[in-house]
């Protein structure tokens, strides 16, 4: 079981309120991702749940019982830190065994769990090495192994992949998702990378300056961002947000249109513009188009390779069904 409820949680460092009153429910077995720009309070929120920081107000409930004042060790949560926080003087086996040893578990049972975890995480050959002799990805797996063997009510991950190179990150992302499917344990995952959020989450929590901007599944956030912040944060490349005369026909302050929802034509369209830099990825081509009556250049995605060059004149036509409208306060108009 791992149902976590945050009830009007606040956190102040001195006079600075990092987390204003915040409510959130995380259901058992869910993969929840906290995403937001750096410094928005994601780690703080995670550490409040872990018990490594004391809340300034509000209540944390784990499986229905009040855990606000319960020390971290007693909450039954396991955390994977950004720096991995492995114990450098212990072998991989001892690192993974540490929580079990602290719990005074019977050695035979310890061995059984370590073997099982090492098997799942491909660490069997490295059990007698020290963390210093492992690669980044392997260290990450040891940190995860140390969390798994405890069989916690929930896993907490704080930007676990940010120290890995891009290729490894994609691999580990899949491994963690697969682990979640297999264990079916609640996971709370913090990242500033919206791609990680979109690919892994059952439920995304978008944070800005300690506030929850929106909670929903990846596709809900993609299809119906509640405000300009979420619209601009979720999706890659970013949604084009257009103010001014181009938005006027849609009776709103700002319209948003994703790069993949704009059609390109050499002859006709709604907006006429000049092609700027193009990015050829092979599968897709992104180009930046400077339109006549839109201040910011628009990003447009076209599938495959296209024969368009720097300085060409081009016509764009947004897909009317995919236009997001926002009012003066930046909120979505349904």
């Amino acid at each position, binding site marked *: 079981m791992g149902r976590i409820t945050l009830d009007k949680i606040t956190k102040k460092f001195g006079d600075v309120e990092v987390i204003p009153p915040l409510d959130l429910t995380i259901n058992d077995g869910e993969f929840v991702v906290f995403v937001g720009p750096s410094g928005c309070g994601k780690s703080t929120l995670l550490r409040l749940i872990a018990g490594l920081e004391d809340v300034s107000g509000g209540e944390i409930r784990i499986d229905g019982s009040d855990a606000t004042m319960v020390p971290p060790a007693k909450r039954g949560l396991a*955390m994977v830190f950004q*720096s991995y*926080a492995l*114990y450098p003087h212990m072998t991989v086996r001892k690192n993974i065994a*540490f*929580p079990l040893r602290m719990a005074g578990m019977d050695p035979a049972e310890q061995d059984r769990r370590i073997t099982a975890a090492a098997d799942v995480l491909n660490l069997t050959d490295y059990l007698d090495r020290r963390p210093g002799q492992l690669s980044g990805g392997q260290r990450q797996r040891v940190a995860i192994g*140390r969390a798994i063997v405890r069989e916690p009510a929930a896993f907490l991950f704080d930007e676990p992949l940010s120290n890995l190179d891009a290729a490894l990150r994609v691999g580990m992302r899949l491994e963690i998702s697969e682990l979640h499917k297999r264990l079916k344990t609640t996971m709370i995952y913090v990242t500033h990378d919206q791609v990680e959020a979109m690919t892994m989450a059952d439920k995304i929590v978008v944070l800005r300056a300690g506030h929850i901007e929106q909670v929903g599944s990846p596709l809900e956030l993609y299809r119906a961002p509640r405000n300009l912040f979420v619209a601009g944060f979720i999706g890659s490349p970013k949604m084009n947000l257009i103010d001014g005369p181009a938005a006027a026909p849609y009776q709103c302050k700002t319209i948003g249109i994703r790069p993949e929802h704009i059609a390109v034509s050499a002859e006709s369209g709604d907006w006429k513009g000049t092609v700027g830099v193009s990015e050829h990825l092979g599968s897709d081509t992104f180009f930046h188009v400077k339109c006549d009556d839109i201040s910011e250049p628009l990003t447009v995605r076209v599938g495959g390779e296209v024969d368009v060059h720097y300085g060409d004149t081009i016509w764009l036509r947004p897909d009317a069904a995919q236009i997001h409208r926002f009012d003066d306060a930046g909120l979505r108009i349904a």
Partner: protein
Amino acid sequence: MATKASRSAARIMMAPAVVLLLGWMLVPLLMTLWFSFRNYLPLRGGDLGWAGFDNYVRFVSSSAFWPSIQATLVIVGSVLVITLVFGILLALLLDQPMWGQGIVRILVIAPFFVMPTVSALVWKNMFMDPVNGLFAHLWRFFGADPISWLSDASMPSIVMIVSWQWLPFATLILLTAVQSLDGEQLEAAEMDGATKLKRFYFIILPHLGRAITIVILIQTIFLLAIFAEIFVTTGGAFGTRTLSYLIFQRVLESQNIGLGSAGGVYAIILANIVAIFLMRIVGKNLDN
């Protein structure tokens, strides 16, 4: 990349320093060895010729020899234990955020800057004096009889004085080590269910291993040769005669340079035995 030319240039430029250091070490060492085989009594006729191994045999067979070895080892061992235990506690304490941290840290380091002679005199006259010392006043305040520290509790007194001098050094080295510990490791251990004591034992202490090794090695080198503290307090009486103090007495009080030099050679051997032991026991901490 060092080229052949730059390497030989480096050798030529280092040569004067190397030769000087070598001379500095070798000349006294060779002179000590030379005198240890001579019958050299400056006030009773000077160099009276070849003595063979007489000096070595006499030095060891003197009734003062084994007690002096024992006193040396007791002082070194006790001071090491005291400075390490209190050094670790102080380092952990000083690492806590607190008001006036900078000043407190300077105060803790201060004793290290007091010359050994001076600090021993301060202890002897201001604290341990059986009539006017602070301890005597304290004892009397509680209605107890003052202790004559330097005669009745001579060894603990010396150990106390020397520990007071070396505690700052140990604290300083250990404090830098404590500060370099990654806080996330402690948090991870906390989440893993380790109590404060277990976190200390399983995480902090192993992390301090290298610093502890350095403290042990450096202090041992200096403690084997302590002299001023004994000279100004007990003058080697009441069982506080260390090996280096015994050598001093043989050379200056008995005016027997040959005998003292033989003692010096024994001191070198003792230092090496201790060094080998230490390297065996703690030296492996310095690898990796």
